[in-house]
């Protein structure tokens, strides 16, 4: 077991290192900027970057800032990558940190969420479970097929993005997506008024009258970081990684993707629709929390959102019966 863990740590370090190098590879195209000055001074942590002449050079971490990837470059995926997410349903207790951090990270209005947490119950007698749902970044994405202007597109690294400067807001992609993943900017919002160059990789700033959704945070991946949701989850529910490299991590544990899926019987939700999602679920077995814990500590409005779920309805009925 000890050995295993060591391996895990190694592969995690490898993943992160490769992430940095992938970012460094794009220095030439101007994604990373060596600014030469930093508010916090030298961190002492050196990072290898490629210069335009092809030389490797060491720069202090704090001297690097990330210039957002522009609309045109964002059409290309990060080279050599194929991102995948694994969600461990056995651990989720609806802490909602993924929802909140994602909202913060993407500067979303209060009523817009990219990540949703469902209280699922597959059939009457089966057990209910919490089910976080990001965008599945399908390999056969309906949303991309139906878009009339090419505002939503599939990249080589598997990510499906939206260019909100081209989107006309017809909402066809929203009806095309069988997973109800996409959200619409229904009104002008102060959250959109931030002074920042637009990047489809960040989905910031949002634009009224256009569609947006979970973007798998490729801007963070370029920096070798996990998406906001995976970083924020206190239970380590969300693993993110690279399917070709066969590695996923939640920040503290790292697994071989193929082994994790094999050992824990991973599956894709509604796989029968032929959309070929890039998000896998681990079934809710040997759970760490009883399902009702997920309803604890929710504010009233959020709690109300689960009122029409079979679980909450049944709980109410049995309570009344008593």
């Amino acid at each position, binding site marked *: 077991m000890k050995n295993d863990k060591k391996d895990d740590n190694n592969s995690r370090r490898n993943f992160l290192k490769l992430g940095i190098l992938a970012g460094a590879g794009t220095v030439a195209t101007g994604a990373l900027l060596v600014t030469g000055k930093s508010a916090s001074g030298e961190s002492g942590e050196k990072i290898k970057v490629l210069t335009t002449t092809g030389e490797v050079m060491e720069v202090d971490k704090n001297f690097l800032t990330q210039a957002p990837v522009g609309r045109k470059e964002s059409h290309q995926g990060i080279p050599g990558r194929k991102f995948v997410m694994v969600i461990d349903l056995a651990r989720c207790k609806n802490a909602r940190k993924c929802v909140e951090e994602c909202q913060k990270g993407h500067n979303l209005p209060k009523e817009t969420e990219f990540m949703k947490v469902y209280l699922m119950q597959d059939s009457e007698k089966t057990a209910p479970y919490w089910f976080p749902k990001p965008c599945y970044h399908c390999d056969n994405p309906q949303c991309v097929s139906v878009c*009339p202007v*090419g505002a939503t597109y599939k990249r080589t690294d598997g990510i499906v993005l939206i260019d909100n400067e081209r989107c006309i807001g*017809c909402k066809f992609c929203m*009806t095309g997506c069988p997973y*109800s993943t996409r959200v619409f900017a*229904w009104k002008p919002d102060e959250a959109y008024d931030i002074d920042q160059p637009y990047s489809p990789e960040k989905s910031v700033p949002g634009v009224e009258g256009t569609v947006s959704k979970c973007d798998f945070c490729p801007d963070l991946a370029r920096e070798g970081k996990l998406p906001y949701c995976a970083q924020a989850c206190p239970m380590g529910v969300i693993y993110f990684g690279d399917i070709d490299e066969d590695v996923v991590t939640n920040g503290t544990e790292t697994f071989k993707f193929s082994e994790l899926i094999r050992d824990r019987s991973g599956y894709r939700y509604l796989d029968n629709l032929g959309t070929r999602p890039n998000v896998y679920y681990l079934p809710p077995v040997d759970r760490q929390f009883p399902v009702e814990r997920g309803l604890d500590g929710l504010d009233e409005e959020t709690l109300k959102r689960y009122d029409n779920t079979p679980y909450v309805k049944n709980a109410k009925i049995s309570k009344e019966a008593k």
Partner: protein
Amino acid sequence: MSDTVNSDKLLREFAPQIERTSKFGKLWIAFLCVVICYGWFALYWQVSRGHIVTGMRDNVVWGVYIVNFIFFMGISYAGALISGTLHLFHSEWRKPIIRMAEFITIISLLIGPCFIMLCVGRLDRLPNLILFGRIQSPITWDVIAISTDIFGCLLFLYLALLRDLGKMRDFTELKVPQWQKKMYKILALGYTGTADQQLRLKRATDVMAGMVIAIAIIVYSVLAWIFSVTLQPGWHSTIFGPYFVIAAVYSGTGVLIVAMYVFRKAYHLEEHITLQHFVNVGVIMLVLGAFFGYFTFSEYLTKWYGSEKNDEQLIQVLLKNYFNLFILSNYVGVLVPLIVVGFRKLRTINNITIAAVIVVIALWINRYLIVVPTLETPYLPIQDARAAWQLYHATWVEWALTAAGAAMFCLLFTIGSKLIPIVQVSDLKEEPEQPGDLHLM
């Protein structure tokens, strides 16, 4: 030249409608303008405050606007199909009503697409549809199909009008402003009715009639495919293309009968539009109604019998939350015209018109039941969404714009009937007989 005498007589009869507008007519136009202004205000409201003022939210992303879009496009294709078919079959009785069918086509074809634009979040980016159009998207198919249809129908209507425009130009007794006379002259393109002109016009009209029928079927199928290419449980159906085409023509015959009734009363056309016309169009409506009922039945039967989880959920919602509307659109809307037109004793002008009104309302509701309940029952249950965002309720903005669309339809119809006689004045005999012409009815 008995033909000329005949059409002059007709023109003399219709001249008062074109020359002046009655007090009631003016009131009617003023009322329509008020409704349209209200719609403009609603549009301003929506544009300035965002789509949040509509009832649409992240789950039900399409609402009444799309329903109106399908509805108006539907009645337009119906006009095209009816006038095209009757033209090709040389049905003699079509003469008094064909102009109305053509007006319905063109006017609703101009109003329909406005509704889909109301649904678009970024109207300023509409040029992207052309600049960055992707042929893979059914919306691009729709853009191509609808623009082809508008062009084709305008051409067909124009060809059909040409003879009458010539007559209007030559009819010196008409007391209309100079600009209007000039307009007739220009639009008549020097058509005087020589044998050569007659033959050419007939050939062109024949070709366009055939084209319009084909385009109408294609356009409405494409519209249906916007829904059925998605994976949504209520939409992902192979029958949707033909189902939409039939539903469209069905609603169109309804609107035609209502228009016949209104103009018959308003312009005193009792002599021209008789019970026989109502019965003839009624029979077409009956046949289409039977098809529509059959398609609806087989669509829901297979869903209900197979009872796949999501289909079952949809049907439950339809029968629980939308029970009255479901019965009205899919039972009353089918059975009433079948009974009224099916039994000889019930065939009166009033009865047939009432049946037609029911058909029009039922078909609007039918589209509503196709669009909204499906979006309310997606694959993933609607959860973790604000209570107000779960179900769809159209707001005053949407109703105001819907009313404005209907008012616009009536207004354009009224204006059209003020420029061109609502009944074709030139004689059908002016169409030279050719070998191979079909004669039905």
